[in-house]
């Protein structure tokens, strides 16, 4: 039981995202409110003016995404929040952000789809869209909390990753998590690290906006600070001008991938429960991971050696870490609120001796512990 702590507050997942963004120093929010993410925009509309930040309700999600890209290039930490239909509209400009290496944070509180779908019901149908939503080849980073506290910390982490790797970061929530209320203590200023943008320290004539540095991440100058550069969605050279030279094309595309893949150890984050001696594992993220933990607890009470793995980073997919965790696992149940998305990733990386068992629900409701528990009992035989 918590001791009576005057600092602990009852917060909603969406509110915690909003507060996490403020903690991380967000200066610009451009968005179009949509259920079940609306409370993030509402909170931002209330809080941003108090802090000298900007809140703009745009005409739609296409414009919202464009606005936060512009704000970020002007030097502001920027973000938007949406749900499935809006996330689809953002995809083209999201691609522009990947290509122009513009840091920003996009929160998608998932509801049932496709199309307008189920505005007030849970789904995890956008899992692959977060990875492959825009066209062309690129590598994305997506984080996914499962508690109110996690919403806060993962949003702060998303802003840090955005600045660290100069790229958009997607935060995937779901309806239940976005609307869920739990107790949490907001950390004091300075308690957790907040990353600043890496700015150029060279004279303006030496500056290259997309320079291929040893770390692969280029320092970023803001518009209007005396640095001259070109920003284009066309495949470009290190100065930002369109190129058709195969070498420069390869350099650009490899940079977009390698600046993330090379550091995947830094980006990957997993939580495990009772995996030490587990022969069976349940793999799931978001609210479903909490169902899985509950089911594991129920199964352990019946002495079934089962554990749970929850990725808090979904993309890049934690290939190496999972291969290692599944070494001694005979069966892995992949529980998802969709018709099977991450199950294909698990199939791709699972050791040959590990059987992959899908468990899916997509009727707008969260999976119950007894559903997962029944599956565990079925496969343990």
């Amino acid at each position, binding site marked *: *039981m*918590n*001791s*009576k*702590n005057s600092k*602990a*507050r*009852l917060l909603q997942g969406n509110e915690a995202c909003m507060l996490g963004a403020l903690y991380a120093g967000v200066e610009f929010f451009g968005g179009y409110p949509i*259920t079940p993410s609306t409370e993030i925009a509402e909170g931002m509309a209330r809080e941003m003016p108090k802090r000298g930040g900007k809140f703009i309700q745009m005409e739609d999600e296409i414009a919202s995404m464009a606005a936060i890209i512009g704000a970020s290039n002007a030097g502001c930490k920027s973000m938007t929040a949406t749900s499935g239909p809006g996330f689809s509209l953002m995809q083209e400009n999201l691609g522009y952000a990947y290509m122009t290496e513009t840091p920003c944070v996009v929160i998608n509180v998932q509801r049932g789809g496709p199309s307008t779908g189920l*505005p*007030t019901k849970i789904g995890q149908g956008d899992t692959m869209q977060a990875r492959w939503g825009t066209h062309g080849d690129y590598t994305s980073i997506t984080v996914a909390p499962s508690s109110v506290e996690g919403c806060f910390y993962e949003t702060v982490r998303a802003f840090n990753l955005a600045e660290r790797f100069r790229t958009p970061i997607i935060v995937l929530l779901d309806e*239940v998590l976005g*609307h*869920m*209320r*739990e*107790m949490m203590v907001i950390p004091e200023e300075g308690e957790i690290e907040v990353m600043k943008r890496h700015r150029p320290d060279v004279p303006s004539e030496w500056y290259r906006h997309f320079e291929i540095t040893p770390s692969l991440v280029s320092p970023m100058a803001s518009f209007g600070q005396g640095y001259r550069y070109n920003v284009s969605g066309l495949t470009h050279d290190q100065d930002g001008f369109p190129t058709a030279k195969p070498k420069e094309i390869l350099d650009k595309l490899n940079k977009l991938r390698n600046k993330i893949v090379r550091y995947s150890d830094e980006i990957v984050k997993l939580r495990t429960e009772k995996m030490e001696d587990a022969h069976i594992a349940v793999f799931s993220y978001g*609210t479903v991971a*909490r*169902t899985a*933990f*509950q089911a594991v*607890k129920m199964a352990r009470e019946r002495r079934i050696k089962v554990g749970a793995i929850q990725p808090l980073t979904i993309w890049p997919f934690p290939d190496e870490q999972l291969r290692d965790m599944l070494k001694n696992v005979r069966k892995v149940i992949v529980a998802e609120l969709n018709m099977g998305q991450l199950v294909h990733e698990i199939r791709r990386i699972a050791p040959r001796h590990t059987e992959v068992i899908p468990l899916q629900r997509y009727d707008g409701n*969260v999976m*119950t*512990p*007894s559903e997962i528990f029944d599956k565990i009992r079925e496969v343990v035989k």
Partner: protein
Amino acid sequence: MAASSKPKQNKKNNKKSQDDRYEIRLSGSGGQGLILAGVILAEAIGVGDGKNVVQTQSYGPEARGGASRADLVISDGEIYYPKSMKLDLLLALTQEACDTYYPDMKERGLLVVDSNMVTQIPTKNYYGFPFSRLAREEIGHVMVANVIAMGAIAELTGIVSMASIKEAVLSRAPKGTEEKNSRALELGAKVARAAKK
């Protein structure tokens, strides 16, 4: 005024369920203020009484009407699954809610209904109070039916302290409605006390 048979409730048994979870569902239709009641109750339990609590909700796309509910899970330990599994307490303000959620209750769970709205009750083991009628006639505002219900729940279960629930209600009450809300809460506790005797 509270027509009900008297459930044999053991408060202690009621609080400590398997897995240390105490699960509450407030159910009815959209517009009855059930999700707000869930938030207030969670705030009283979490902030006021310092317990672990998770509150979730389920509602339709309509502004009014449609099924609406709030779930609370209270525990001494970490709460994994955030929704209810087997209810210790069900508040049903409509017949439909009662019919839908009664099967989700524990055998010794506590059922509380609006006795004007829920007329076919699947058990003898329940408390019935005319929440909406009390709100209209005694307080003069039908919208405080949810607050009367919270007063009754606090009195019947002891899952939340009266001081905390009062503080939580008043902190969320719009200006100028504090007195009505206080009276509603006390009325709920009073009718529950009378029914317990």
